[in-house]
């Protein structure tokens, strides 16, 4: 990626700076007036999307303060410290995916303002969370429990909803500029090592009812060497290349650029919100091996390496219209068009001349386009206290291909189309002020596997005004992904094929949530929540070995596994004067039956996680100190070995971050902090999958890049 690409962005930032300077004088006078004006602006729409979810489910919220504490640039930076979420990075591709309640990213749906995000080969699930920029985010809602009825297939463990910041509260204009410099472990250089982030955002409240916002963010992660010698390294002895495996990086670099804009306006009782986002990411992959062919004229060795670059581009257009239809009855309509393209380049890099000799591949390897719409009408019977109803539809049309997920030789590299028509309804039965019951159902019609029913039954019972019980019983429904359906890699040595006849996974999920609040004094409050959950997933999709018609071994996928997860968690948060404390623990067990054979049925394998955070504010110097810690207990999984099932495990490890955030002036603040204080890089593991040929037996998993330090400077200018 060249500097040119960002020139526009930089010029814009400079231009914005100039405006800021010109407007500065007027700011002070108008400050007090705008405050009044804006308090009167009714913020509508934003809460309606999730309003029902909040009534039915336990919702955890991470707001801008939480993001600021860790100087988070993307979602991966902050989800690490969530008690029930584990972030798993893949250093070779740079992707980070999450698991929630012990279920992997396939069972969690990521939404932006209620609309599922296009992922590599699906809709909302298995998202690379490092691709979600937090610059224009108001808050992140983590909704726990089986959400299939409201959000469709794959929302089994829960939903993560990213809520975009709309409008301004106290001012007409707001300009935010920030830079962030980070070390990667102990590696840092002004350009080529470490992590460099620049953000710019301009928001304007055009009138009481209309606001716009535009901005951009660049995150340049230069990779983590960790002993590897980088791109231009080669070991030449006696005119011969000696491959010592030290070329390249431990974690490959990644450069991300996000541009975004939104428009929010109210027309009478109707609110219209439009959001645009462009995302570009480049990940170069440096080959560990060097080819040392000799130049036949000079006789000198010309070391070259076959390197690769993955470039992902995504464009998102989201439109949401909401308002009231008649009296208290509300409606909400969403439309979205999203495209994602991944370009793949493979080229011969001349190490001594530091340039590209030739391209061996330069093509579009993945492309998908999604048209999406969802709409619902809620509070349909506003006059009844006892009964209410919400009805809605959801429509997804996805076309695309994925040469990587389907394999290079696939016939199915030609476009595939997946279409979903869903209708859903949730009823309210309010038996008393305290007890409500919400049965819900969704009928889904999928072009690949036909009609299916997703159902749920939720209930809330308020024992006291603060002590509340929620219980959710629902189906655990996951549709097979693109790779599981269409993968194809067949040659003389391989026979790996997806299974287009796969059925969705189905099962039952039970989720119980008890929470209470205690006022401990004038300015102290304790919140306690106990959760228990149980997932019983049948027909779980797993890779299997069978034989094909020609009696050859065939590696494919089938609905054969059976998995049960049982967990308990206790979360406490305490606010006391200048202190904010939280402490939580979770205990989770998983029992797996591989290949539906009783012989491989395992006992529950338990793991224990602990999360804690401390915050302390010193008002006199406008400073907040915070620290957070997460202990990830040992995890165990059942693996299918040649000698039958064996238990593999990943050892325990602890994350800890600490930061100081201080306001130097009203407009300028600095955050200084450290990530990964316990310096985690690799964690011993015996459950690392070995390659297709079983040749790479690695006994550790890469989780972090060592203790890193960051400095963030944020300039925030409000003016009228």
């Amino acid at each position: 990626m060249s500097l040119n690409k960002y020139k526009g962005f930089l010029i814009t930032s400079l231009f914005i700076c100039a405006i800021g300077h010109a407007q500065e004088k007027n700011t002070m006078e108008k400050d007090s007036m705008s405050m009044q004006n804006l308090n009167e602006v009714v913020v509508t729409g934003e809460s309606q999307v999730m309003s029902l979810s909040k009534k039915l489910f336990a919702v955890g919220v991470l707001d801008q303060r939480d993001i600021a504490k860790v100087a988070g640039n993307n979602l991966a930076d902050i989800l690490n410290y969530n008690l029930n979420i584990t972030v798993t990075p893949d250093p070779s591709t740079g992707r980070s995916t999450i698991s929630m309640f012990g279920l992997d990213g396939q069972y969690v749906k990521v939404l932006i303002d209620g609309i599922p995000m296009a992922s590599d080969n699906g809709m909302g699930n298995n998202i690379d969370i490092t691709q979600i920029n937090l610059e224009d985010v108001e808050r992140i809602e983590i909704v726990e429990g089986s959400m299939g009825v409201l959000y469709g297939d794959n929302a089994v463990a829960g939903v993560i909803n990213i809520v975009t910041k709309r409008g301004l509260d106290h001012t007409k204009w707001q300009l935010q500029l920030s830079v962030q410099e980070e070390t990667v472990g102990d590696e840092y250089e002004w350009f080529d090592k470490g992590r460099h982030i620049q953000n710019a955002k301009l928001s304007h409240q055009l009138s009481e009812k209309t606001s716009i916002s535009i901005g951009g963010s660049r995150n340049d992660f230069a990779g983590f060497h960790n002993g590897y010698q980088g791109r231009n390294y080669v070991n030449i002895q006696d005119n011969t290349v000696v491959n010592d495996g030290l070329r390249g990086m431990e974690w490959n670099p990644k450069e991300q650029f996000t541009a975004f804009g939104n428009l929010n306006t109210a027309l009478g009782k109707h609110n219209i919100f439009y959001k645009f986002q462009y995302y570009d990411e480049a990940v170069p992959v440096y080959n560990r091996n060097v080819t040392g062919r000799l130049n036949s004229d000079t006789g000198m060795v010309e070391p070259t390496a076959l390197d690769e670059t993955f470039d992902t581009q995504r464009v998102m257009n989201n439109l949401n219209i909401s308002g009231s239809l008649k009296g208290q009855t509300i409606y909400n309509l969403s439309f979205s068009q999203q495209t994602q393209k991944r370009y793949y380049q493979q080229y011969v890099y001349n190490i001594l001349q530091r340039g590209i000799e030739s391209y061996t591949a330069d093509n579009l390897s993945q492309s998908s386009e999604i048209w999406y719409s969802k709409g619902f009408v809620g509070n349909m019977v506003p006059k009844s206290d006892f009964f209410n109803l919400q009805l809605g539809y959801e429509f997804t049309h996805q076309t695309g291909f994925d040469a990587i997920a389907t394999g290079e030789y696939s016939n199915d590299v030609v476009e595939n189309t997946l279409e979903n028509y869903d209708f859903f309804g949730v009823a309210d039965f309010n038996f008393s002020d305290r007890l409500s019951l919400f049965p819900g159902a969704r009928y889904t019609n999928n072009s690949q596997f036909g009609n299916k029913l997703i159902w749920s039954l939720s209930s809330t019972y308020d024992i006291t005004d603060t002590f509340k019980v929620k219980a959710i019983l629902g189906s655990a429904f996951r549709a097979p992904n693109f790779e599981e359906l269409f993968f194809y890699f067949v040659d003389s040595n391989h026979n790996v094929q997806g299974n287009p006849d796969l059925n969705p996974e189905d099962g039952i999920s039970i989720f119980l949530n008890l929470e209470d609040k205690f006022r401990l004094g004038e300015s102290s409050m304790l919140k306690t929540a106990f959760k228990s959950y149980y997932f019983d997933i049948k027909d779980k999709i797993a890779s299997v070995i069978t034989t094909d018609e020609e009696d050859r071994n065939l590696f494919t996928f089938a609905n054969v596994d059976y998995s049960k997860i049982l967990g308990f968690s206790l979360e406490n948060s305490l606010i006391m004067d200048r202190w904010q404390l939280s402490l939580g623990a979770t205990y989770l067990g998983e029992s797996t039956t591989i290949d539906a054979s009783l012989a491989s049925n395992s006992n529950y394998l338990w793991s224990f996680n602990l999360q804690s955070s401390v915050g302390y504010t010193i008002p006199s110097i406008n400073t907040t100190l915070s620290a957070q810690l997460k202990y990830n207990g040992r995890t165990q999984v059942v693996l299918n070995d040649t000698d039958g099932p064996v238990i593999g495990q990943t050892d325990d490890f602890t994350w800890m971050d600490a930061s100081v955030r201080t306001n130097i002036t009203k407009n300028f603040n600095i955050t200084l902090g450290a990530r990964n204080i316990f310096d985690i890089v690799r964690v011993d593991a015996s459950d690392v999958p070995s390659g297709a040929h079983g040749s790479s037996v690695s006994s550790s998993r890469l989780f972090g890049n060592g203790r890193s330090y960051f400095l963030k400077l944020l300039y925030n200018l409000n003016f009228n």
Partner: protein
Amino acid sequence: MKKTILLKAIALMLILSSCSDDDGENLIDFTATFASATVSTTEEETSKEIVLNFSRAASENGTITVSYSGDNAEYGTDFTTSPDGSSGTISVPVASGNTNASFTFNKLTNAIEGTTKSVTFTIDGFSDADWSTGSTSSALVSYTPIAATSGIIDTENGGSNQPNQVYFDFSTGIQTAVRRDLWEIGLYNGTENRVFLNSSLSVSAVELTGVTDLLSVTEASDLPEPMELNALDAMFQPSTVNVSTVAELLVGLPVGYNQYGDLEAGISFTDSPEGTLEGTAFAEISTTAEENYVYLVSLGKEIPTQPAETGSINTTGDLRDIIKVRILSDGNSYTIQYADLNETTAFSEVNVPKDAAHNITAFSLTNGETVSVEPATEEWDINLTGVFTYYGSQGPLVAGLTYSDYVVHNTLGGVGLYQVTIEGDVPTYANFTMADVDESALVYDNRAVVGSGWRDTFGGVVNTDRYYVLKDADGNYYKLNFTAYTSTEGERGHFQFTYERL
């Protein structure tokens, strides 16, 4: 005002930290260089292609201007070129996307004995101002052969299908590439009467002991005697099979993991990897006709045409036919009788006389004629077979094995070779001299010393801990070192080695 300074400082940081060192993203400079500084021609050759190599693929069309000067050679009288060079220079076209260009040197006369005669071509200019001359700006084309003392050889095995086997002669520097599927059996031209199989095409053969009537055997026939053979079961565990019919035997005839055999009893349907006369799958051909039995011959596997993905190979395709063969000899020639397996009325018969100039005479059972494959005995030292198959052990398993990137040396032609493993005070390839040669280490009874051990396909590297010393039949010593088994683009089947006369 303080605010403004901060603002400016941040704006500056935004700009500065947005930059990065991106020099590496640009293409390297385009340079053109002669593929070889000296080109020799033999008396028989009337034209020679002169190649210009580029540092990278050309990004646009253009021309390279080449001038020439003759030593006892005049344009139009002693030579011409194509494209035409009568104006004093040659315009060599460069096509966008190509990594080389060439022109043809046409020889009109030959050198007079005892005089030199040559033409020197020099790069004189480019149509594109950004292009420049690389390391070798001129090439001398000699009218007579020039003896080679060292060289860097890019083999012509042909890529990821490895369609060719390549014979190489160190003293002349000539490589001869031949398709692997031109022949199935090789008739030995020495005093013994022996028949080799084409190991680079997975050819295998089994004797039907006692059967001399070629037409009596079909797929439905019973074997004269049941055989007990070793095999591998579906889980790759050793097991034994009893076969009593031709049909049952054919299941285990082709080279593969389920090939039958019994090494302890001396039963192998392939030649031994060592390539000795005693190791052939065919028994020695007797001059008494009745002692020569019928063989079932699996004609091996097709050479696939679809290239493999980067870093991988695709060398063995569909199984070819199985035919029946009986070979007789009078000591000076071989008589090959063969027919399709189920043919019962007539067979083909070809007589092939021994040819003293070659180790073996290659014969095509598919076309029924001899084929020119091996150069004359003294004119090759190593054979880069690419594919190589034999029945043998790999770890604990005994099976029909298929190798790629294989190299054998000419043991039948009196070439010796040994491997030098760099450890302790063993000199490196560069430092190895004549004084370091260990005459007793030279191996003359096993052609597979190099084998496939010179590269590590799992690691994706050439093994740099070894090189080889070779002594040709004329007593010249060479050291050779493999430098690549893939192209720079990662395609398999593009070997490179360097050698030097000691």
